[in-house]
């Protein structure tokens, strides 16, 4: 699924191949940009509300009900600042903001209450990332398309409305994309990443949850 997304993004963005001089960032230059970001859903965890059985010895607890929660996919906004160490390698910091809802399925009620799904949309989620960009100059797409690979580590902060609850954690992402120069140092950028969330809102012992990110935006190179 992830590969398919990446391929589609690249094909849509790729201009006709030409034989002119190829785009390559100048060492020491900066890149500033922003755009929209799609953050895929991720598991939050399962939990059981239990009571102690009226038995001697080790008996499984009585399950009053079970919950299974997910962070829903959301579209957010992002911004980044990069510095090209060389024409092939850049370091970059980025911030992403989104408001995913928490979707919780409730099932297996002891008193046979029907299963149901509840949701909450009060969560605000921030990624603060620091990463490395490797420009794949050998894979130029035409004169202005420059594929890249990226890897980052970030700080995750999840805040509910009215700051009722704050969770934090780490985010690791790896992926790639395409920078497509337009004119005058302005370009478009498309990327797709796979991420692992370590911490944050977690409702069970499973602390690592995977998610998918896709972004599209513009940047200025100077």
């Amino acid at each position, binding site marked *: 699924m992830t590969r398919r997304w990446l391929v589609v993004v690249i094909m849509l963005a790729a201009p006709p191949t030409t034989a002119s001089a190829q785009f390559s960032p100048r060492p020491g230059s900066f890149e500033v940009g922003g755009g929209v970001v799609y953050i895929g859903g991720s598991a939050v965890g399962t939990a059981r*509300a239990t009571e102690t059985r009226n038995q001697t010895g080790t008996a499984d607890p009585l399950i009053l009900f079970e919950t299974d929660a997910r962070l829903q996919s959301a579209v957010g906004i992002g911004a980044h600042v990069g510095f090209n160490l060389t024409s092939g390698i850049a370091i970059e910091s980025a911030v992403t903001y989104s408001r995913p809802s928490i979707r919780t399925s409730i099932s297996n009620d002891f008193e046979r209450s029907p299963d149901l799904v509840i949701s909450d949309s009060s969560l605000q989620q921030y990624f603060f990332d620091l990463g490395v960009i490797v420009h794949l100059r050998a894979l130029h797409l035409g004169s202005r398309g420059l594929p890249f690979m990226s890897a980052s580590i970030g700080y995750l902060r999840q805040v509910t409305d009215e700051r009722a609850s704050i969770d934090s954690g780490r985010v690791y992402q790896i992926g790639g994309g395409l920078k497509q120069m337009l004119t005058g140092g302005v370009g478009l950028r498309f990327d797709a990443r796979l991420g692992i969330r370590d911490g944050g809102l977690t409702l069970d012992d499973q602390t690592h949850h995977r998610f998918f990110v896709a972004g599209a935006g513009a940047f200025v190179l100077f």
Partner: protein
Amino acid sequence: MSHHRVAVWLLTVVLTGMAAGRADAYLKFGVNANGRTIALRWPRLPVRYFIKDRGAPGVTAVQLQSAVDQAIQTWQNVPTSAVAFQFVGFTSAEPFDDDGIVTLGFQDRPELEGILGSTGFVIDTFTGDIVEADILFNSAFPWSVSTGGESGRFDLQSIALHELGHLSGLGHSLLGETELSSGRRRVIASGSIMFPIAFSPGVLEGRTLRADDIAGISDLYPDGNFSSRTGSVSGRVTKNGQGVFGAHVVAFNPQTGALVGGFTLTTSGTFVIAGLGPGPHVLRVEPLDDAAIDSFFDESPRTDTAFGVTYLDRLTIVPSGGGAAAVEIRVRSQ
């Protein structure tokens, strides 16, 4: 100062609930003073207590004191609560004598059918302060003080833990499931040692406090930064637009697994559950149908049990040191 012995028999019963009394908030006893409800609590700690110098078949007074001491240690080990007790000595005084001392002891009360233990109070009806409280363990039942429990005998430490919760000011919790067997209620499972019906003879699970008990005792006698590190949920339970009295509301924290219960105790259906860890909570409402209503409060006629289990349609986020936005949970007639 006006002291009135309140006819509050807070009973741990074997098969059916018989306790009566005015309960306030979610699991605290209260007294109505000048039109407002005040939670019962001890004004000074530690609570100094005596043990009645009488044993029961198979249990000496010294063994009773030991079982009570173990139960006290369990309550005192709650890190977020300041509740404390101090053993003074043995006494010839009887439980429920209006003598100004706290006495715990056995009495042979076969007429109290199904009642393992009970707690009575003398309270100051103006302040809500507990002036005296006694605990009776009914020696008409077979008791065990064995570490590993004994088949056919009730675990004295477990029942002492429950009654000491009452003695501290806690009411009954409805976190438990029961079934009717030969016309009597039997516990299937429980989520609180303050559930009004005891575990079966030989079962030792009643020696361990649950999240509901810990929240309750910490709410009554908070220690350290309990108040700033926990929060509350509040709101109303309604049916056809009208408040529901006596609904059981449970807050479940999926992050910790904690279940803490409370009741709607006004005709407008309002409830407050305090002592919750911060984070998202699932709220579940059920009718009071797993024990006798008068085990919880003395307003049985107003209690509405004609509705089905209902969940709030969203998560409630509990903040640290404050309250979540008030919610309304609409139940349907059943």
